[in-house]
């Protein structure tokens, strides 16, 4: 069974029965899933969740489908890493990383697509589709392959090669759109209006988006059923950010968390920062932009949930932080060199924002902080490759190696073993 009550318009509050619809027929506002929280409260318990599957489905009572589909790939229940090295580098006391790089297609999108696919099968669709900045394309394509569904994914033509391969390999039909993501998404919306396909981020959006709440549920459970003080989340459309907020609120609503909720801070890069710009000026209006960021998975110039993201940041006492483009690769490197975690450019934005927040005192030293690392670094290697050319280039002789090494390290530092270690550390923290 599910505890879903209805689809409800976020703007005018009109309710609709469950179906493949995402827009209020009256005011065209976005629809959201509502639940019978009283019933959930009676049935849910920390023990039952702990005994559940090691995936997002341990929180089925707060998801809009009865169960995982037969073709589920097992997204979720990813590690929460205590990041002592990064914390030290940033001057924070207690920092955790939610590592969503290890999902089946290496990003958090597997969570939302798992829910959308189960719902698509329930509604009887035979084709899965989406518009994507890359990660969603891979998740939809893989999940469709496993479920035996056809798949069409609409991507901007200039996507990173790794993301194109990472989606195409599963057999989806890639529709490469000569334009940016917003244009691909607009085209997909018009296609969705004409073909009866399950577009996970369009006609299935209300269900799909619910999958992101599990990123709040898991962190709360992994911290021993408490909410952190502050979380930092990358923002593209704003959907992930607002759903993580909904997650904390629901846990409180059904009695799994005491009232306290974290401050919610979002991160955007200078090359696409419409939500951060509105936050900075105190505005409620998001002015769309044409993105040029290297963090392509965040490059949504017309963020549909941007307004709601502003509301969440302001209501929770958080911020929407903007970081410079050149800080993205440094953020990726800092994360890799302190915690051994190679994440994509979106995480570079998140880590750079974290650093900026710590430097400016916007994150308190004693705040228990969680940063969401939403995608794997192997997807966006070219964004940082240039900065990471090999330090030593040698012919295969010991003499050549020692000559190169001598050129790299000052004479005074040269004693066995220790020097290499010193060198590595210096590089990581001077950036």
């Amino acid at each position, binding site marked *: 069974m599910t505890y879903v009550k209805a689809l409800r318009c976020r*703007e005018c509050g009109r309710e609709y029965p469950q179906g493949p619809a*995402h*827009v*209020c*027929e*009256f*005011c*065209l*506002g*976005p629809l959201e899933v509502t639940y019978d929280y009283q019933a959930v409260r009676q049935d849910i318990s920390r023990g039952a969740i702990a005994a559940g599957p090691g995936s997002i489905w341990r929180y089925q009572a707060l998801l809009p489908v009865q169960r995982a589909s037969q073709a589920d790939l097992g997204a979720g229940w990813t590690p929460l890493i205590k990041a002592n090295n990064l914390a030290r580098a940033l001057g924070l006391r207690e920092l955790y990383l939610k590592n969503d790089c290890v999902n089946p297609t290496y990003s958090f*999108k597997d969570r939302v697509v798992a829910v959308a696919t189960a719902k698509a099968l329930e509604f009887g669709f035979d084709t899965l589709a*989406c*518009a*994507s*900045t890359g*990660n*969603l394309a891979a998740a939809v394509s893989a999940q469709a392959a496993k479920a035996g569904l056809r798949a069409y994914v609409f991507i901007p033509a200039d996507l990173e090669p790794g993301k194109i391969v990472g989606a195409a390999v599963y057999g989806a039909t890639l529709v490469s759109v000569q*334009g940016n993501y*917003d*244009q691909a*998404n*607009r085209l*997909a*919306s*018009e296609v969705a*209006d004409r073909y009866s396909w399950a577009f996970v*981020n*369009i006609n299935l*959006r209300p269900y799909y*988006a619910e999958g992101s709440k599990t990123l709040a549920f898991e962190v709360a459970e992994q911290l021993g059923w408490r909410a952190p003080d502050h979380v930092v989340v990358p923002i*593209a*459309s*704003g*959907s*992930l950010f607002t759903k993580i907020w909904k997650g904390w609120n629901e846990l409180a609503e059904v009695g799994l968390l005491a009232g306290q909720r974290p401050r919610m801070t979002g991160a955007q890069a200078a090359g696409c920062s419409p939500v951060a710009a509105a936050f900075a000026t105190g505005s409620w*209006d*998001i*002015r*769309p932009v*044409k993105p040029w960021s290297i963090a392509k*998975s965040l490059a*949504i110039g*017309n*963020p*549909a*949930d941007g*307004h709601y993201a502003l509301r969440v940041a302001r209501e929770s006492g958080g911020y929407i932080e903007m970081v410079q483009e050149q800080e993205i690769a440094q953020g990726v490197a800092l994360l890799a060199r302190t915690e051994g975690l190679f994440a994509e450019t979106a995480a570079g934005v998140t880590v750079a924002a974290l650093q900026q927040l710590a430097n400016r005192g916007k994150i308190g030293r004693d705040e228990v902080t969680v940063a969401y690392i939403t995608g794997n670094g192997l997807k966006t290697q070219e964004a940082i490759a240039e900065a990471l050319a090999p330090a030593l280039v040698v012919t295969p002789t010991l003499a050549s190696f020692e000559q190169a090494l001598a050129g790299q390290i000052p004479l005074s530092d040269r004693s066995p073993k220790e020097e290499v270690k010193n060198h590595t550390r210096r590089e990581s923290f001077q950036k």
Partner: protein
Amino acid sequence: MSSIVRIPTPLRTLTAGAREISVNSETVGACIAQLEARFPGLGERLCDERGELRRFINVYINGEDVRFLAGLATPLCPGDEVSIVPAVAGG
């Protein structure tokens, strides 16, 4: 020659199911006024009390968001295609 306006599914209850409507208007704003005159109720779905486009409604002319042009004052030329698309989150 007139412009074509593509109507999204949720609004077709107001247009008697029509997917595309021909209009003769000089601007996007005038186009919406003309739609309202022919299909009462359509205008308030697209614009708020101040007469501004609702924030979760996107209007495109030949694929370009009018907010990158002149908004409701954006001129319409014969043969232009106007798309009305509700905002869609994603990624």
